[in-house]
């Protein structure tokens, strides 16, 4: 289970990485099928400039520090070619009837995409925006990514 701002990769058979109740937060999910490895970041905010120290201590909190940190963890685990990674994004919702004043979810999504582009990558799948809560999980064994939402059920991303 990944709390706010946490980041993890796993190659342990049978294990699952999960981010619960994403509102405006974004889960960045990375799967390396050839290596049977999965990773996830629970991004809370777009840009670490507001608190550089936090970005160093807990890089997963921000999109701009979290994505390079996740990629570094994959490299450490032996996934050297980033083309081996399949990236998916989920979350980034906004409050019902809300306007851009409080739409940090959209900024989180854009910041994640930007950080991926800077690493010459792009998400293969997205389930983002709108105004509902999402729980996202990925299983090491299958690499499949699922989204649960209260009252809406479950679907595969």
């Amino acid at each position, binding site marked *: 289970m990944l*709390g706010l701002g946490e980041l993890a990769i796993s190659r342990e058979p049978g294990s699952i990485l999960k981010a619960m*109740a994403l509102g405006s937060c974004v889960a960045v999910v990375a799967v390396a099928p050839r290596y049977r490895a999965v990773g996830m970041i629970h991004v809370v905010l777009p840009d670490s400039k507001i608190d550089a120290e936090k970005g160093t201590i807990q890089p997963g909190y921000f999109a701009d520090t979290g994505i390079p940190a996740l990629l570094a963890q994959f490299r450490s685990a032996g996934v050297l070619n980033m083309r081996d990674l399949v990236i998916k994004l989920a979350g980034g919702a906004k409050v019902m009837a809300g306007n851009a*004043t409080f739409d940090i*979810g959209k900024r989180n999504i854009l910041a994640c995409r930007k950080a991926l582009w800077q690493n010459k990558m792009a998400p293969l799948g997205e389930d983002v925006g709108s105004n509902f809560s999402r729980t996202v999980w990925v299983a090491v064994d299958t690499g499949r990514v699922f989204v649960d939402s209260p009252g809406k059920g479950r679907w595969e991303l």
Partner: protein
Amino acid sequence: MSKELLFKMCQEVKQPPIRACELVIQLARSQDMDKAFSKNPLILDAVRAWQPWFEKLTGYECDGPTAWLHHLGAAVGAGLVASRILGLPNAPLAFAAGLLHDVGKYALSENLPKSNQSQPISEGKTFLDWEKAQVNYSHPEAGAMLAKEWGLSDDLVMLIQHHHQPTEAPLELRPLALAVHLGDIFAMMTGIDTPRDNMAYPLDPIADQYIKRDARWEMVVYPKLLLDIDSDLRRLNGVCEGQGGTRV
């Protein structure tokens, strides 16, 4: 459901300790928001006194620790919005109202149908509409009745009643009601929620009258506010760890 039945359901809600009510009344009268939340003795006492009261909310598919975190998160958010964004002198009142904003859910919880036995919320409807369709009352209405029962101040009663619709609060309380409304919404947006109704409420349009969007708001003020809510919530929840506080 008649008002009598709602009253009966409120009577069945576990009474909070008298000391917990006294502390929240004292906090609501206080104007001391100079210290950080986790260094404010009155806030610490109130938080410690209320944490054990929060139990599971079956009708909202929420366990006790999660229900507690949602209330604490909304309190921190309400306090920070009131003091830092709206510049209100009585921010402790917003904190106190945030801490108890959803207590009405404890009156309704057992009477709501389970997810697999109820219609999903229709497009364009809010969770308040859904609650009323099920039991004739919404949790803010039930919360106001409970707060009155417990002898809390009129201001606290009104803030609990209007935390989803601050526009309908008495004029002098509207900025504080907005602070509680936003504290609740910010907690939900960061996933500190009661799962069944997360994000199923609209933002009240009054927010636009008080908060103007500009580059500084977007790039600095708002993200920093969310970051500080999370940090203060972790610190305050930490003081409850010895008495069963939960991991954030």
